[in-house]
Structure formats: structure tokens, C-alpha cells
């Protein structure tokens, strides 16, 4: 009889444990805005790159609102597209989401974001909002997102190194020849290099190299309604930009680490005074002033080859409300970020997405801020639902193009046509 009882115990235990395991394994339901005591809590996701300013803004929002509270989660930037996509497709995403404007077209036409065209049109400052941001968050003339933060690429130069190299430290390089000459001069200094870029980071290269192409009037994408075609080959402006950078690499004006820098250390060489110039956004500007006051630097818009035009990559985030969220609460959040939020940013010396707020406080902070405002006005963003998989994926067509054209043994023209084929295949899906 002991054996039967023993068996019964074992069977019951086994069944019980399995049931518990299965129940525990069930995932929780989709994230819904929770309401308790009349306080609505909205969940918000943003990318980890926004760490510098967004948590503070969210705190300010929460301090000034009793009925709505925001719960911010920062998602690692490299995994953003993937995490947002999986959350969106399973309905377990956040109520409010901040998406990088380069990648938001992927989400605007999927029905995941709420159509807020009417509210946006009614905004009194609508015309002062960054056009690039609004365009990226729109499908046709319907708006699905509003601007949240702006980042634009500009050319940084180290004034101390310029002076040591015998160049005028106050004169910004205005043509490619001048950049090249400055790079040569700085490279001749012991242990210094003239120019730096993150060659293994596709997104970084899009941000820092494509302005050279756009400044010369070139394009890398062509949109015709729903049809998006890559224009990577033939493309004379792109070829010229690649040749320009390749020349500097071949002549040793660029540190070797540029070839393998995959985005994890974009600013180190400039922060430590090792390189003379690099193209970057607003983030290192704040960092340099706060943490590296010894580095004397200047900013200038990225020029075309002959200096007649300038351009920048308009980046940053758009803010959107996901489908199923309380629209009124969501719009309260969006409007706060567009108004008080932008004012707060401008007061802190961070580039606002509203040109009417850029004057005054923001420009007072630092005369160099004017460069960012100018750059935002000539900001471009490649617009395509698949832009991330073509331009921002390190293993994608553009990443491969940069590696082959700048560091490979083949010709730039070959690299460009290979990238064109790969990009066409990626965009065709």
C-alpha cells in the first residue's frame, strides 16, 4: 500500500508543479493605461539616446500634473526598431512612444499610431514646428506624430589643434579642400589625426556623411507615392563624398579605429583632443561644455564640395500616441512636450523643435547654438518605411557600402552598385 500512496503523491506533485509552471509562464496582458484614484498613468517608451534630457522632462511633467502621470522606460537604442515592432505587433506596447524620426515611417502606416491631424493643425505654433519632423511622422497629409527633440549634424573642429597646426583657429573650414588641408595640418602633429568618423556604424555614417551628399544637391532616396527607390548608384554627389573620405583614409588622416568603430565610442577621440574634426550632433556639444571644458571647439554647418551649400541630417524624435490609448490624456502629454517641454529644453540650451522658441533664451545661451538652428533649417531625413534596414543596419546595404568603399580593396563605383542592388532588394519587400 505504501507504494501506491507514494505513486499518488508523486503524480499529484508532478501535475501540480506543471500546472503552476504553465500558469506562471502565461504572459501578462497588453499594457493598458492604469487608472487608480483618478490618476491616469500612461506608459512611455523612448530610446536610450534620450537619456540626457528626457527623464528630466518627464519628471517636470509629472510634477506639474496631478491627474496624469508618465512612466518612462528607456529602450537600448540599438534594439529600438525590433522592440517597438514586436511590442506593436502583439499589442503590448506603451501608451505614448518617442520614435527616432528616421525610423518612424515604419510605424505610421501600420495603424499602430493614432491619427492626430486635426489636433496638430489646430496648434497655434504649428508653422514653427520642424518641417522635417512633421514630414517624417506623416503619411500624405495625415499627421501621426509631433516633434519631440531635434538633433542635427554639424562639423566640429578643435580650435587648439588648429592653432598648433598653424591654422586660424577661428576660421571654420568651409569647403572640402579646406577640410582636407586642415586634416593634413593636424595629422602632422605628433599623435594627432585630422578627421574622425565611426566607419562600422551605419546609422552614424548616415548621420555624419549624408549631409555632404545633400549639401551638393544629391539625394539617396526617391519617393513616388508608395514607391521608394534607392539612388545609391549612379550618384555623383555620393561618389564624390565617398572619394573625399576615402582619400583621407588612404593618406592616414583618419585614425585606424575609425574602421572598426561601431557606434560605442563615437566621441572619445574628439573629447580627448586626439582628432581635429568630426561631424556630430547636439549630444557631444552638451558633453564638451559640461565635462570637457579644456577642449576649445567650434561648430559650422556641413558644406558641399565647393562650399556653396550646406546641409544636415535632421534627426531626433517624434512623439506619438498609440492606438487604444485615451486620446485626451495622450494629447495633454503631447501638447505639454511641445510647449512647456520645448521651453524647458531651450532654457537648458538644448535645441528646441520650434523655431519660435529657438530665438531668445536658446540663442542667448551660446552663440554657437545659432549653427544648430541654421542646420535644422537645412535638415534632411531619408524617408522610407524600410530606411532603418537599408541605412541604419550595420549589416545592411549602406553599412556594407561604407566599409567597402572606404576601407575595402575594390573600387568605390563597384561598392556603390552592389549597395544599390542590395538596397533595391531590401526596399522591394
Amino acid at each position, binding site marked *: 500500500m505504501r507504494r501506491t500512496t507514494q505513486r499518488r503523491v508523486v503524480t499529484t506533485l508532478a501535475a501540480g508543479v506543471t500546472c503552476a509552471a504553465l500558469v506562471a509562464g502565461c504572459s501578462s496582458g497588453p499594457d493598458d493605461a492604469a487608472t487608480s484614484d483618478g490618476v491616469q498613468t500612461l506608459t512611455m517608451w523612448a530610446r536610450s539616446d534620450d537619456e540626457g534630457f528626457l527623464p528630466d522632462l518627464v519628471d517636470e511633467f509629472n510634477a506639474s500634473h496631478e491627474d496624469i502621470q508618465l512612466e518612462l522606460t528607456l529602450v537600448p537604442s540599438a534594439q529600438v526598431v525590433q522592440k517597438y*515592432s514586436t511590442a506593436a505587433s502583439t499589442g503590448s506596447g506603451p501608451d505614448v512612444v518617442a520614435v527616432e524620426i528616421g525610423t518612424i515611417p515604419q510605424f505610421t502606416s501600420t495603424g499602430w499610431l493614432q491619427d492626430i491631424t486635426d489636433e496638430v493643425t489646430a496648434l497655434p505654433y504649428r508653422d514653427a514646428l520642424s518641417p522635417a519632423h512633421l514630414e517624417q511622422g506623416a503619411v500624405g497629409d495625415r499627421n501621426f506624430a509631433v516633434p519631440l527633440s531635434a538633433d542635427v549634424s554639424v562639423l566640429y573642429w578643435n580650435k587648439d589643434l588648429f592653432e598648433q597646426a598653424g591654422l586660424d583657429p577661428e576660421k571654420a573650414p568651409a569647403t572640402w579642400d579646406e577640410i582636407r588641408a586642415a586634416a593634413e595640418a593636424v595629422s602632422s602633429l605628433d599623435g594627432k589625426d585630422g578627421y574622425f568618423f565611426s566607419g562600422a556604424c551605419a546609422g552614424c555614417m548616415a548621420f555624419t556623411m549624408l549631409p555632404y551628399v545633400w549639401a551638393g544637391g544629391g539625394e539617396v532616396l526617391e519617393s513616388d507615392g508608395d514607391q521608394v527607390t534607392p539612388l545609391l548608384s549612379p550618384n555623383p554627389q555620393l561618389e564624390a563624398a565617398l572619394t573625399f573620405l576615402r582619400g583621407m583614409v588612404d593618406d592616414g588622416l583618419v585614425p585606424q579605429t575609425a*574602421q572598426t568603430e561601431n557606434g560605442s565610442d563615437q566621441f572619445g577621440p574628439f573629447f580627448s583632443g586626439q582628432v581635429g574634426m568630426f561631424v556630430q550632433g547636439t549630444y557631444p556639444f552638451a558633453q564638451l561644455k559640461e565635462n570637457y571644458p579644456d577642449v576649445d571647439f567650434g561648430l559650422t554647418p556641413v558644406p558641399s564640395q565647393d562650399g556653396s551649400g550646406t546641409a544636415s541630417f535632421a534627426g531626433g524624435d517624434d512623439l506619438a500616441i498609440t492606438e487604444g490609448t485615451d486620446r485626451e490624456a495622450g494629447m495633454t502629454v503631447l501638447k505639454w512636450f511641445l510647449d512647456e517641454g520645448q521651453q524647458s529644453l531651450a532654457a537648458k540650451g538644448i535645441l528646441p523643435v520650434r523655431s519660435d522658441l529657438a530665438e531668445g533664451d536658446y540663442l542667448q545661451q551660446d552663440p554657437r547654438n545659432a549653427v544648430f538652428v541654421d542646420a535644422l533649417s537645412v535638415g534632411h531625413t531619408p524617408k522610407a518605411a524600410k530606411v532603418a534596414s537599408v541605412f541604419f543596419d550595420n549589416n545592411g546595404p549602406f553599412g556594407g557600402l561604407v566599409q567597402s568603399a572606404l576601407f575595402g580593396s575594390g573600387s568605390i563605383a563597384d561598392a556603390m552598385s552592389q549597395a544599390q542592388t542590395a538596397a533595391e532588394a531590401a526596399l522591394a519587400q
Partner: protein
Amino acid sequence: MSVTPALPVARTTTRGAGDRGPVRPASRKALSRSRRRGLLLVAPALLLLAVVFVAPLGVSVWMSLSSWPLLGEHTFIGLDNYTRLLHDPQVHRALLFTLQFALVITPVTVLVGLGLALLVEKRRRGVGLVRTAIFAPVAIGFASASYLFLALTNTATGVFGRALVDLGITETAVNWLLDPGLAMLLVVIVTVWKTAGFAMVALMNGLQSIGKDIEDAARVDGAGRLRLLLQIKLPMMRDSIAFALTFTAIGAFLTFDQFYILTGGAPNNSTITSVYRIYNTAFTQGQLGYAAAFSLVFLAFVLVVTATQLVLLRRGADS
């Protein structure tokens, strides 16, 4: 990698099993009752298997026959994904690179495992500690190990680079991603560090199952240590070696974490394995259907290679 040892078959009886030998169940009712109990106990495992393996496999097959974007609607397209696979150079490169990597890593891991097993098979003082130390890396995940080595081998801040320079072996800190050979070497080092322990345990098992009398007999016949190893011990360990080789090879084919974290495909997308390409296609390119098709083709590929391996090893045993 999990190893499920063969369980001894349980005997069911309604009376105590005396020394009269196997007792047949007293009635058919008792037999079906015991069978039902057996099924009941196995049912959770079967359910788990069905939910975690069979169902997703079925869904994968359905996805592979569809155009299934990560975001948006999916449509049935029949075998289009498979025909696209046939002509996709990225798929061919990924398969080729996976094969190359497996061909390099499998013998290296098993040889290192064999060397380690020979070192630690004898019961000496402290050998338990050494065995644990060698096996410990097997227990941590590949992602953790990769991040560990990513930090250690960082060109600017890593300990290894600094150590090599101080020892005079290199002039400047090694930049592993500049050269495809170096990138591969880095991954080989990390993988061998992490998996040699498993091969060691498997081979140690085989080594220790060889009776001491065989060793003594061979010694009496005048066989030296090397000859003893090569011509007597290894042939007797054939099963252990087959096991170690097969499991190491399967693990090598499925390699993803190390390349994703350590090299990111660098230099110039030359270190992308099949699973890496599948992951990239599914979650970065957002094409789940195409990725599902590739993963099913890859599954078939691995099955074929593994079956071939087993047949070859078994045939060797029969000869």
C-alpha cells in the same frame, strides 16, 4: 546543450517483485491503469514539447510560405521565399561561413577537450577543482561570455591588448575586427574557452570506462604512452568521441551570440553565420516569412550534416 541519459525502464507490478523474476501484471485492468498512469506522468512533458517545439515549428512552416512582415498584414505566397533563397548571395555566404566555422571549431574544441580530459582523468589532489574550473565556463551563457571577452579585448581599454603590448608580443593593442582572420580567431578563442569543458567531460567519461587491466596489458606488451592512447584508448572511446564531435558540431552550426556581440559581422559583413543572418532578416529587415524559410532550410542542412557525421562515425566503429 542538454544530455538526457537513458532511463532504466520501470517495472510495474501489483505485487512486490520477489526473487521469482519479472512478475506479470495480475490483470489487464491493472496493465491499462499503469499505462494510463505512465501517460499521465509523461503528459506534461509532451504538452510542453508540443507547445514549445511542435506548434512553433508548424507556425514556422506556415510563415515560410507567406510574406510576413514584422509589422503589418501577411499574405500567402507559396514557395516564393524558397526560390528567393536559392538565388540570395547573402544566404549562400552565411551557409558557407557557418560550415567553415564549424569545420574549424569542432576539431579544435574536441582536441582541446581530449587534452584536458587526459590531464584530469587521473585522481590527483585538487583535480576536482581543476575539472570544475574548466567546466565552469560551460555554465554561463554565450552572451555573457561574449560580453566578457568584448570588454577584455577592447582595443582602447581591454586588459588583453595591454597585456600583449607589455609582453612585447604586439606593438599596439590588437584591433581584432580589422582582419577577418583575427575576428575569427577571437570567436574561436571565446568558443573553445566556453565549450571545451563539455567535450572534456564527455571524453573523460569514455577514458574512465577503459578498464585498468587493458592499460596494464598494453604496457606489458611494450606499448608507449602515445601508442597506448592512439591505438588502444581512442578506438575504445569511439562512442564518447562521436558524442563529443556531434554535439560540438551542432553547437557550432547554431553559433550566433559570439558573432553578433563580438564582431557584429565585421569586418565588412564577413563573419555572419546562418543564425545571425536569420535573426537579421527577421528582426532588423523585418521579414519574418523569409527568415522562417531560411531557418527551415538551415534545419534540414544541420540534420543532413549531423546524420552524415553519425553514419561516418558508426561505420568506422564497425570496421
